[in-house]
Each structure stands twice: as structure tokens, then as C-alpha cells.
């Protein structure tokens, strides 16, 4: 049930193809971009659940800039940055700026799949929580309406019983008159 859509931005064609193949095989919907500029354009046109981006890419838009663009587009997009083994500091910096995670090169795909599983899980729970909140609102409203409606019905019934009681126990009228009047009241109800 891997239904997440993933955008991969990396200028290295070998790594790009590797990502595309491995992620597709695992059932994800994958789109690849050759650099930050193309990735930014794709982000503008469609929505992705996850963006995986190399931190260092040629051109105007590097990994950090792409991270910023994705987060501005929607906070729901999760960004994973890829970093060279020696530059963990920049990865930590990216996480401070909103990346969910970082991967070191060479990519360990088993590790990546585990992290994607976690991301999918968090997304599912956020959806659960949103639905829970909305259901609580609607259910609470329905409960208060139900109670109010029943109160009104109950009040009307009590009122009717009181009137029947008054008619039936009226000492001034003959018994058959009282019954007739009571039946008439019930019929017009």
C-alpha cells in the first residue's frame, strides 16, 4: 500500500536512475528532476508527499532552497536531504530548516524505505486525527440536536397528557362527553 508520491532531485544521473528504479519497485509513484530548478517547477505544478533532494546541485536552486520552496508550498510536504558522508553539519542545518530527515551517501535503500514507512505512518495518523476532530464536532452537534428535539417532543407529549387529564377529570361534563372531547383532541393532534 505504498501510495505516496515522491519527487527526487539529484544532478547525478546514476543516482537519479537508481532512486527511480528502487522506489518504483517498492510501489511508490516517482518523479525525477535533474536539478533544483526543474524540481521547483514540478513542485509548482503538482503536489508531492515527499521530496528527496541532494543538498549540492548546480544552478540557482540548491537543496536548501528547494527545501524552502517545498515548505512554503505546503507544510505537509516532507523533505529528505541527501548529503555526502563528510558534511553531516549541513544536513543538521537542513533539519533545523524543516527537513524531516537526511540520508548519507552512498544511499542505503533499506534505511530509506524504513524512513518512508515512518513518514507514511505519520501522515496516516494526521489524517486520522483530522477526521477525529471533525467527527467530534459533527457528532457533538448531532447529539445536542437530538437532545433538543427529544425535549420538544417530550414537552409536547406532556402537554397533551395534561390536557387529556384536565378534560377527563372535568366534573362538570358528562362522562361520554368527556371521552368524546378527549378523543377529538387526540385526533387533531
Amino acid at each position, binding site marked *: 500500500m505504498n501510495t505516496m508520491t515522491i519527487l527526487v532531485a539529484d544532478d547525478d544521473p546514476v543516482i537519479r536512475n537508481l532512486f527511480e528504479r528502487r522506489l518504483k519497485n517498492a510501489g511508490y509513484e516517482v518523479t525525477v528532476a535533474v536539478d533544483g530548478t526543474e524540481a521547483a517547477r514540478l513542485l509548482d505544478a503538482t503536489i508531492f508527499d515527499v521530496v528527496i533532494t541532494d543538498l549540492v546541485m548546480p544552478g540557482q536552486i540548491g537543496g536548501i532552497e528547494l527545501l524552502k520552496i517545498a515548505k512554503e508550498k*505546503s507544510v505537509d510536504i516532507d523533505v529528505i536531504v541527501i548529503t555526502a558522508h563528510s558534511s553531516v553539519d549541513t544536513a543538521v542545518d537542513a533539519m533545523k530548516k524543516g527537513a524531516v530527515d537526511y540520508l548519507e551517501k552512498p544511499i542505503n535503500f533499506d534505511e530509506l524505505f524504513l524512513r518512508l514507512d515512518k513518514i507514511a505512518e505519520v501522515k*496516516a495518523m494526521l489524517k486520522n486525527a483530522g477526521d*477525529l476532530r471533525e467527527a467530534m464536532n459533527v457528532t457533538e452537534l448531532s447529539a445536542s440536536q437530538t437532545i433538543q*428535539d427529544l425535549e420538544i*417532543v417530550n414537552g409536547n407529549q406532556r402537554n397533551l397528557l395534561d390536557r387529556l387529564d384536565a378534560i377527563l377529570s372535568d366534573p362538570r361534563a358528562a362522562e361520554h362527553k368527556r371521552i368524546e372531547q378527549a378523543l377529538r383532541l387526540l385526533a387533531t393532534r
Partner: protein
Amino acid sequence: MLKILSEEIKLVTKYIYDISGIYLDESKKYLLETRLNAIADEHGCVSYQDLYKKSKADATKAIERKIIDAISTNETLFFRDTGPFQLLQHKIFPELIDARASKASALKTNLKVWSAASSTGQELYSVAILLQELLGDLSKYSIKLLGTDISDAAIAQASSGKFNKFEIERGLSRDKLTKYFTPSGQTWKINDLTRSMVKFQKFNLMQPFTGLGKFDVVLCRNVAIYFTLEDRKKLFNKIADILEPDGYLLIGSTESLTGICPRFIPKRHLRSIFYQLH
């Protein structure tokens, strides 16, 4: 996030009503924005009116399906409210089995249950689990458990029988969890026997109920609360038509049929209410 304009709210809520019967008023602006924003984005819409037009023009109905998935509230849990399930276990199923079994002792006893807005399946799986606990050996019974919902995504999850940690922790005891589910990665999967007892399919409750057949028990819980009074009346009338004469209807614990369908009379057992036909 794409903002919805006040003149678009009417258009979009009317559209949602037309395709699903779900009635949203002006106060649900936030809901429209938070739930439709991603779809609008995905289809490159510049406004919600644009989304509306694209969805109407889409012959594949893919956008319409996404809108329904997004707008429907699929909140549910296993054994929700407890009471109705105790009622099923201690009164409804035993009585039905007595009534059905006496008719033809050589044949299998038939039981037909419909979860009319089954969402992600917890309600119907709870019934399937309960029947196994109650009956033990199922070979003497012919059990038909049907779950329907308007949301494709909900039906897909129900059919997969997979639930996440959050879903599994709500309403299921430890021993039921270990007895009826197996862990698979981050999720838990219902066992094959329980899965084979149930069937899920897409169905819009606003449609006529033709071809569904008759049912001994109908669970129509926490869905009519999203409909107008008029539509609730029609819905419960249609349910009355497809319920066996001695069948049972269960509704949500915050709901009432007073003033909605006089064909049903409320009855009380073990602190829970159920409905039967006059």
C-alpha cells in the same frame, strides 16, 4: 493555501451535496479549504470554481472520487460505543439464530448483516469477530456480512484489512488483537478467516436500494448526521424497505429516529437502543 471565496462556498457545497448527500453549511469554510486544497493543487486549479468545473467536466470521475474521499469523515473504531455490540452478542444474534434455525434444521442458518457506512471497515470486522466469539464453529451458518461506503479510499482500506497503530489501539483488547490480527511492517492485518467473512463495495446511500437484497441486521451509524433532515427521512425509509420483518436496525448513539421514520419503533435492552419495524 488556496483561499475559498465566499461566492464559491455555495457552489462547492452544492456540488458536494449533489455527489454525496453530505450537507455542509457556510461554517465549514475551513473544512473545504483544508481538505480540497491539495486536490486543487494537484490538478493545477487557480480557484475552487476552477476545481468544480474541472471535476464536472472529468468523464472519468477521478476528481469527483478524490473530492468525496477528502470531504468524507471516515472516523470510526473497533467495537464503537460497546453497547450495540453487547446487544448484538447477547440479544440480537441469539434471537435471530433461534428464529432462523427453527425454519429448516437441516439447512445452514442464514444471517445477513449490512454496515451501511462502513468507512475503513472496523464496524464490520467487529461484527465478524463477535460472531466468531459467539458461534465458535461457523460451518453450520451461512453468514453474509456486507460493508458499503461512498469513499473509494475507505473501501480500499477496509478491503486491505490493514490498520495502523492508532487505529488498532482503539477499541480492541490485547487478546482480540493477537487472536485476529498479524503484524506486517508498520501495520496490522486482519486474519484470513475474518477477512473471508466480509465483503466491501462502494455504494452511495442517496441511491435507490435496488439489488441489495434483504438484511437481518442493518448498522447505519454516524452517517445520517451528515445529511439533511429530508434525506435522513428518505434514507431510513429505504432501510425499512430492505429490513426483514423481524430484523434489527442500529443507529449511532447520538442519533434518534424521532420525527424521522415512524415505521421504526425504538426498543431498549441492556442500556442500548435498537429499532424494529412496526
